[in-house]
């Protein structure tokens, strides 16, 4: 997400004019009237002028002989971005804002989109907004979020529920939303109510934004008789339904569509019908609301974990370089394969030695599949069995690489014993490994 450039531009100052001034630009061949805007583009050979018609144009500076100021810019009032952090969550849906496109605004002067909407601005136009208690946690694009942010979100969610919130909606950038939803799924133990992450694929400054629909649906889901961590986004291209997806089973599968999030390997938890306000449960795995007394927070993570994609031609040194990590998720091919060259082909570039060295040195290695859909099974081909014998994890699991990565951090945060780590990684804790491969999960 581009960050706005601020400050007046020096070349305009050459002519004694500043951004926001109403000016008359006199060029060798024409005269233009309008408001001087700061530059959005890198090139400093042009100035941007907003004409009276509302259109912007760029004028080459070398053609300008003079800029006359008609009106000086009015002083801008600082936009207050943060509101009172004191919130009463009791009997309300807590709305925790973490930035991203859903909370983004266009900087009309520069044209850049930046995260700046306050939670209450977000709620404008949402029905029954008085039943919602908004709180701004931070305003960060989701590609910039780190595991420390997950911890903060988990803590805030935990305390909001402990303070009586009947559900939690977390607005979040979409790019890494499924990492956060997986992290919250492990850190928040026995959640008594729905914790729903939502975002938008079209920014709130356009008439076609999906933000109001997604937010309305997320609030409906947060009030429903459900418990757990979910992602709630558009189900299809239309504004009539949203899909509620289990937090460990969600993945962003499209760069731009509203329905970018898909439920991987299992049916979505529920469909939310916007017109009727109905939350229709679909999955048998849905849990009902539970007692708050069992609800716990456990944010211990070992973040010294990496993901490594496997591809034809991968250099053995790329694997060897992973030895400084405590855990590695290898994203293998097909059913869970790595190039280990059992057939001794002269052109192959095996990495078996390096993977074995990682395992021998005590690095926890988990194998996921780049197919994304389906279960890993290393028994089917001989080269898979070799890996299994070496102690690689992931056999018969169907976690997405991202969920496996987050889970490995959480497991290594609690356990050092390789045997126990393997046991925990291959055991279903919070729905991340589905008991059976559903016929309708793809």
């Amino acid at each position, binding site marked *: 997400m581009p960050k706005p450039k601020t400050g007046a531009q020096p070349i305009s100052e050459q002519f004694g004019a500043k951004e926001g001034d109403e000016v008359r630009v006199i060029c060798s061949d024409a005269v233009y009237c309008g408001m001087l805007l700061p530059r959005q583009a890198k090139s400093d050979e042009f100035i941007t002028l907003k004409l009276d018609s*509302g259109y912007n144009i760029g004028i080459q500076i070398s053609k300008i002989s003079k800029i006359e100021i008609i009106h000086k810019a009015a002083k801008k009032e600082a936009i207050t971005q943060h509101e009172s952090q004191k919130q009463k969550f009791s009997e309300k849906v807590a709305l925790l804002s973490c930035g991203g496109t859903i909370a983004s605004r266009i900087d009309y002067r520069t044209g850049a989109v930046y995260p700046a909407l306050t939670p209450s601005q977000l709620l404008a136009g949402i029905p029954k907004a008085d039943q919602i208690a908004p709180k701004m946690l931070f305003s960060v694009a989701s590609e910039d979020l780190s595991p420390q942010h997950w911890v903060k979100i988990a803590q805030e969610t935990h305390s909001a529920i402990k303070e009586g919130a009947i559900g939690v909606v977390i607005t979040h950038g979409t790019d890494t939303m499924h990492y956060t939803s997986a992290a919250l799924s492990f850190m928040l133990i026995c959640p008594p109510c729905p914790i729903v992450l939502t975002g938008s694929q079209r920014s709130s400054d356009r008439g076609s934004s999906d933000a109001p629909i997604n937010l309305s649906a997320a609030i409906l889901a947060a009030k429903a008789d459900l418990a757990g961590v979910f992602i709630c986004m558009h189900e299809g291209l239309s504004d009539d339904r949203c899909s509620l997806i289990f937090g460990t089973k969600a993945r962003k599968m499209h760069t731009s569509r509203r329905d970018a999030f898909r439920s991987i390997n299992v049916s979505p938890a529920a469909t939310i019908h916007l017109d009727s306000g109905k939350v229709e449960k679909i999955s048998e795995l849905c849990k009902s609301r539970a007692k708050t007394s069992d609800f716990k927070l456990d944010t211990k993570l070992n973040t010294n974990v990496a993901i490594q994609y496997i591809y034809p031609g991968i250099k053995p040194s790329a694997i060897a370089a992973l030895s400084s990590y405590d855990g590695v998720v290898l994203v293998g091919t097909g059913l869970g394969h790595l190039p280990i060259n059992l057939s001794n082909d002269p052109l192959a570039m095996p990495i078996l030695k390096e993977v074995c060295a990682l395992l021998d040195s005590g690095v926890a290695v988990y194998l996921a599949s780049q197919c994304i859909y389906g279960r890993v099974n290393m028994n089917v081909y001989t080269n898979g069995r070799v890996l299994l014998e070496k102690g690689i994890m992931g056999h018969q699991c169907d976690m997405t690489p991202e969920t496996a990565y987050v889970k490995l951090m959480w497991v290594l945060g609690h356990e050092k014993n390789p045997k126990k780590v393997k046991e925990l990684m291959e055991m279903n804790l919070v729905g991340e490994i589905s008991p059976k491969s559903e016929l309708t999960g793809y």
Partner: protein
Amino acid sequence: MKCGIEIHQRIAAGKLFCRCPSPSADEMGQKEVSFTRKLHAVRSELDEVDRAALFEEMRQRNIVYKAPTRYSCLVEADEEPPASINPHALHAALVFCHLFGSRIVDELHVMRKIVIDGSNTSGFQRTAVVGIGGSVSTSFGKVGIQTICIEEESAGIVQGNEFDLSRLGIPLVEISTEPVFESGKQAEEAALQIGTLLRKTGLVQRGIGTIRQDLNISVPGGARVEIKGVQELSLIATTIEIEVQRQSALIEISKEAKERLNDKQFQPIFVDLTDIFSQTGSQMISKAIGSGAKVFGMKLPMHAGLLGKQIAPGRRYGTELADYARLKGLRGLLHSDEDLLSYGVSEDELLEVKAALSVSQKDAFVLCFGDQQKVKDALFQVWKRATVFGVPEETRKANPDGTSSFMRPLPGKARMYPETDLPPIIISPEMLQQAKEALLKLEEAQKEIDSLISLLNPELAAQLRQQKDTISHNPSFEPKIPQPELAVFAFAVQNGVEPSFAASTITNTLQSLKREGVNTKELDEEKLASFFLAFKEGLFVKAAAADILRHMCNKKTTVKQAVEQLGLRKITGEQLANLVKKEGLGFAQLMQKYRLRVDAAELQKLFSNSK
């Protein structure tokens, strides 16, 4: 009166911000994908909500989009950011700027113009100023051009809230004149000039709906009104005259109403009249009540007689108010200046209504029926319109009879903000040069054509100039003269074909084939040019032209195939001499028998030599 026009002409190029092809005029793709959306009003860069946008949001519509996969992709569905601008469309816009002497901007900034009536999936239209200033010559002097913009075509309305995405995103050039016209005739002439100049470049789409005129009209004492979508040039003058008449009438009516009301405002009071009509003989009303509708009325104090005043042909002040009621989904309204008895309302019911609304002789009233909330909303809109006491600034839709109907309030400045998904585009010296050269080439070609046409007799020349839509256009054909018929004519003459034969083949022969029902569009420049080349090479004689062309169209063959299949290869030289010997016939008999294969002049020569 002050009037300016905006010409919107589709550019002959693929979509502006994706790589989909553009459908031709009035073509719609098969609608394979359908989805529904809601659009919301948003704050603009001036932190204001545009009144036109707010108005549309108030309508709270579910918009249905039908998307053809051939002519649309995720960009049209607002599911993917725009691709970079189509360079061919931009080139065309630069050519138009040169054509009108408009100063091209150094750097192009694509803007979003908020439009949330559903005609754009994104909630805005992408548009950019390409040129500023310039002029077009008319019989009443030069008319200044304000701006030349390049923008996206909107989605076509199928019906109600349903839109088709076929045409969404087709590049348009928008040419706005200064508001200098003093009469409708002047505006009409300028529009004709601009349209003709654009078409001559060959860079624009042709056909119904590919050009549209918007009018900006201000009447002293009235307001600025934009009338959108005048499709026929000949309607411009009428539309303007009717609008001036409408505004003048409205000014009169409001003056009268204000005087009668003594400058006092009145309140919107809605009265439920459903019970009065429970036994009504009016089929329309009883049917509605039967299906759960409510009837509400509102008094318009001191308005007696005003609602019936004509403001435009076939339109009364009451029609104007009904336009506002319709926005809430009602079919219209009934008012006291209409003959309500003709709708089946009884005298008694009328008396009861008047009593319920406490309407005196000086007052007027309006009645609406339908869903209770809709009726109340509609009456509120009617009240708002009636209390403007003047001409509101409006965007209106042009009707085919020259009148117009209300669409929405005129948008303010708050409707434009930058398209953040596209960086500004620097117009390089190379791009400018290319556009200039293209225009020069076009002008030279035009001159050349003119000189070739001057070889013809005036009648045939005029006929040839007017010959349109007989053959198809093949974009790869050089020379690039926009009118395919003229392009082939030039090619043929330059390759040594006799001008009058070329011209009469293109006009008379093809025209009569068309009349026979032959699809002459099977031919394009390339095919017809190869026909003339084959003639020049002596493959066939003039008399066989019609038969060969007919065969080429009907059987979709090349000229050579047609000649072979029809057995019309020209008999010439030695072959002809042998034929003369073999047949032993005289000139006239031989010609009668071999008319389609023998050139009369050659045969004549043979006969005179042998003597």
